[in-house]
């Protein structure tokens, strides 16, 4: 096959960002290890608590973003080839869509489950376990397991959030967000189990419903984000708040070139990068001028990758 038309490889990440990506991958491996251990601990101690079951599902779910991050990161590194002629920068967008669909689906299932438990007034079963020859209320063990499960997401989540903010890594920010939902889930689970101890059977299912609501909210928010990304919508800031100042900065920089009579930009995100079109309100454009625009764009921000330049005299 001819190599004509193959897009140049994506812009190399700056050294700091490259290191950050490696660091993020190591954090993801740690997340997988700790969350797996915490989930096993919760499974072994969960009894009949609805809130704890919900917290366990949330825990298992929080494995999806780091797994998807690791897969996407590896896939992205393969870059441009004869099959993927425009590169694999969108691997993180696909990872994001997968996580969002998983979160939304499970959120819906959990809301249904908790509502069903509440409406049918099902009493949660919390028995006893034998510790050193004594029968101990299982609720104590469940609360301890939930508290232990909250520690890794707090520590890893803070680190990921710092890294994501510092280096504008949106997929890592999503992962950290899910981690935050994770420890909040554990806290709500503890309240639910403590409620069972007070004889409040509905406390558990209500806590589960609150958790399920938060999972669903995360899922829907991320799903909207994923749909935006797949439609090449305008770039958003790291926490998905509007607007990203990057297009404005680029436009100002290009308009400052002495020969430019006016400009507009149409940018979209592609994984870690931002690409798009710069439209100049000039009547003519030389190859040298187009290259000057691209060079100016690259100097504005490391995220700006593939910039096409065209004329838009209107």
């Amino acid at each position, binding site marked *: 096959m001819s190599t004509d038309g193959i897009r140049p490889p994506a812009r190399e990440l700056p050294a700091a960002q490259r290191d950050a990506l490696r660091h993020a991958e190591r954090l993801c491996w740690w997340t997988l290890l700790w969350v797996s251990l915490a989930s096993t601990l919760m499974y072994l101690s969960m009894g*009949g608590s609805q809130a704890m079951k919900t917290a366990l599902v949330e825990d298992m779910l929080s494995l999806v973003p780091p797994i998807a991050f690791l897969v996407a990161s590896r896939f992205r590194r393969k870059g441009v080839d004869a099959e993927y002629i425009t590169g694999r920068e969108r691997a993180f967008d696909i990872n994001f869509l997968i996580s969002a669909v998983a979160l939304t689906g499970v959120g819906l299932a959990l809301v249904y489950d908790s509502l069903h438990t509440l409406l049918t007034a*099902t*009493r*949660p*079963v*919390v*028995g*006893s376990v*034998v*510790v*050193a*020859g*004594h*029968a*101990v*209320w299982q*609720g*104590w063990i469940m609360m301890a397991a939930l508290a232990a499960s909250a520690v890794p997401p707090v520590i890893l989540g803070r680190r990921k959030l710092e890294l994501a903010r510092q280096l504008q890594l949106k997929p890592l920010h999503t992962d950290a967000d899910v981690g935050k939902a994770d420890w909040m889930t554990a806290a709500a689970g503890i309240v639910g189990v403590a409620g*069972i*101890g*007070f*004889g*409040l*059977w509905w406390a558990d299912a209500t806590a589960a419903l609150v958790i399920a609501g938060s999972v669903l909210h995360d899922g829907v928010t991320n799903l909207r984000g994923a749909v935006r990304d797949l439609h090449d919508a305008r770039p958003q800031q790291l926490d998905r708040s509007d607007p990203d100042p990057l297009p404005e900065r680029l436009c100002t920089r290009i308009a400052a070139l002495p020969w430019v009579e006016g400009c507009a930009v149409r940018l979209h995100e592609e994984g870690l990068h931002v690409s798009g079109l710069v439209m100049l309100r000039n009547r003519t454009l030389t190859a040298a001028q187009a290259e000057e625009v691209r060079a100016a764009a690259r100097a504005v921000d490391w995220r700006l990758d593939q910039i096409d330049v065209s004329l838009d005299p209107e």
Partner: protein
Amino acid sequence: MLGACDGYPRDADAMTAKAAQRGMRVGASHDPPWLLVAADGTVGGPEAALAERFADAHGYALTWVPGGHDALMRDLARARLHAVAGGHHPDSPWKPDVGWSQPLRVRASPDGPMPERRIALPPGQSAWHLAFDRYLLAQDAAP
């Protein structure tokens, strides 16, 4: 004893208080040789004796409610019974819906086998469940 704080954990439907005030109502499902329900409704066997010893130790009156296993388990799930003895199958569909005691460690004859058998307890009644299990463990520890 570990975790034996007064008043915590509690029952969702005050089963402990009801046992003290009105007596224990225990479902009996014919399951020889562990639990025997005679034609006249009299209940016997090693599991029945265990439930009676528990009631005596706590000063509760005990009323046996003989019946079909599913009907008894339905009542147990709604906290209308304090326990159901006999008739439990290891793959019982009721398994996740009700509580299960610690193993009973009873024999049908002095040197007979001691399979793992449990009594079903109402869900959501943490204090009641814990008291029953503590009694069973104390029995095991007794010489």
